């Protein structure tokens, strides 16, 4: 009898150890990725790498300044296009919890969220690049804004759901028109959650390469015109990584380091906001 219980306890111990082991083995890749990016990336990064343009192969030096500017421009473009629409749709969903249109929108958000980024790239190509007959920053921005939309809508809806109903009732009872209630009461009380959502969606698109392959395309030179091809950090990493030159490989590591720091900072910042300004009622 006692032996039986002992066997069960041993089995329990073995299982616990196995769970812990597997859980921590899966951290090994993360450690290796961060280690190699830091090791190989830090060496490359200096003033010249951050603030000069790529040079043709054969000339040493050069940097990724245009790619950094391009990434920033793409982020700004896609924010301009997706934030107003995303927040408005989120408000609609939280105001109309039930109803045919709301359920359809929720379904569409789920589908959009799961759509592979490469398919969105093709869509932006067909909508913008093919009619304008040139790769452009604008098309890249459109592709990325389609990817941002579902995240913004979802977080806005989730945040506004938490706001108590009596807040809105009190405002309406004072005779404040509906649209002012939304703009001045509902939105400000949910602003932290919405900001978190926006930052998370920006973090999501910062590293996206697939939709940019045939929209923003990449550019060796500095470009500020949104109707011309533009460079971006993830595209530059891809381009350098697939090239046969060791010097470009080390540039790819350097650019990766910048990109990882950027996305992690955005994620941390988003988390910080949601913790610090948590909605409390």
């Amino acid at each position, binding site marked *: 009898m006692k032996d039986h219980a002992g066997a069960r306890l041993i089995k*329990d111990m073995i299982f616990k150890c196995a769970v812990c082991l*597997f859980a921590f083995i*899966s951290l090994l890749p993360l450690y290796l990725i961060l280690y190699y990016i830091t090791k190989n990336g830090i060496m490359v990064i200096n003033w010249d790498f951050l603030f000069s343009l790529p040079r043709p192969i054969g000339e040493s030096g050069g940097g990724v300044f245009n790619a950094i500017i391009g990434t920033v421009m793409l982020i700004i473009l896609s924010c301009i296009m997706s934030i107003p629409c995303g927040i408005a749709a989120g408000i609609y969903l939280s105001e109309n919890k039930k109803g045919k*249109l709301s359920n359809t929108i929720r379904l569409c958000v789920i589908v959009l969220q*799961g759509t592979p980024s490469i*398919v969105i790239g093709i869509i932006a190509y*067909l909508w913008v690049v093919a009619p304008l007959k040139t790769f452009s920053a604008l098309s890249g921005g459109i592709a990325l804004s389609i990817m941002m939309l579902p995240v913004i809508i979802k977080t806005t809806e989730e945040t506004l759901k938490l706001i108590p109903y009596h807040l809105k009732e009190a405002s309406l009872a004072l005779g404040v028109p509906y649209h002012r209630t939304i703009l001045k009461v509902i939105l400000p009380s949910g602003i932290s959650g919405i900001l978190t959502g926006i930052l998370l969606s920006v973090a999501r698109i910062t590293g996206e390469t697939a939709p940019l*392959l045939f929209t923003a395309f990449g550019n060796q030179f500095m470009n500020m015109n949104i109707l011309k091809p533009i460079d971006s950090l993830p595209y530059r990493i891809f381009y350098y990584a697939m090239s046969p030159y060791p010097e470009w490989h080390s540039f790819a590591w350097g650019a990766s380091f910048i*990109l990882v720091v950027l996305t992690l900072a955005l994620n941390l910042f988003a988390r910080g906001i949601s913790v610090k300004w948590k909605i409390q009622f």
Partner: protein
Amino acid sequence: MALTASGGFIVVLLFAVFATLLAAAVASIKEFGLFFFIGKTWDSSTETFGALPFLVGTLCTSFLALLISIPFSIAISIFLGEYFKEGAVSTFLRSAVEVLAGIPSVIYGLWGLFLLMPAVRLLETQIGAPPHGVGIFTSSLILAIMIIPFSASIGREVITLVPGDLKEAAYSLGATRFEVIKNIIIPYARSGIIAGILLALGRAIGETMAVTMLIGNSNFLPTGIFSPANTMASVIANEFAEATGITASSLIYIALVLFFVTTVVNIIGTYVIQKVSIESSKEVT
């Protein structure tokens, strides 16, 4: 009014996406029809297009990745959902998994290209396979690493939803923790865990950059798990920028299939998760 408009815009957007893909793929659909899915040759010089190699490539890489990732993701979900619900260890593991989810796909590709690929090549020379380095196995490994966070976070949520009185009842009968997990938690959370794995599968099918960099870009039917291949997403990434006419149309046909498959997988997964969480919220009240 503006709210309804932007809500409706999302619906219109999705339909426009579908309609655009369909319209652009129509030339290829007319030409090849359903034979597209069983054709083995993909040759733009003779304009014969069959997507079977890419379908096989996508299926092999995503299911192999799923197979590799399942033990790890379930271990993480049990670890975070049952053994260490809070505390420093749990916070550490959870944030580490979130960081893993936040790393861009192209960086996984870069890392795989310079570290995983030589390792796989070494393994291949050890066991006597042709030492390509790149191929289905390498892509599956990197995909597995990329999808662990998704199924793990959903699995954790579902496991924490298991009602406490069920577990307590089992403990009071003298069950060990392993028996509680095996007989109470896993059966109760099964559908949710499966839904999480399904959503991870959706990610794996649509994942482009890391796979494109590691799959070896070969348009022939793969012969083994170490042979180079192409997935549906990677062939689009590799060829679409230079494609015109019927080639472009066929690539968009592939994109349409990809869109359709991921949509179905996602809807089923999300539906199951919603059902699970509604049921458990009913039981609490």
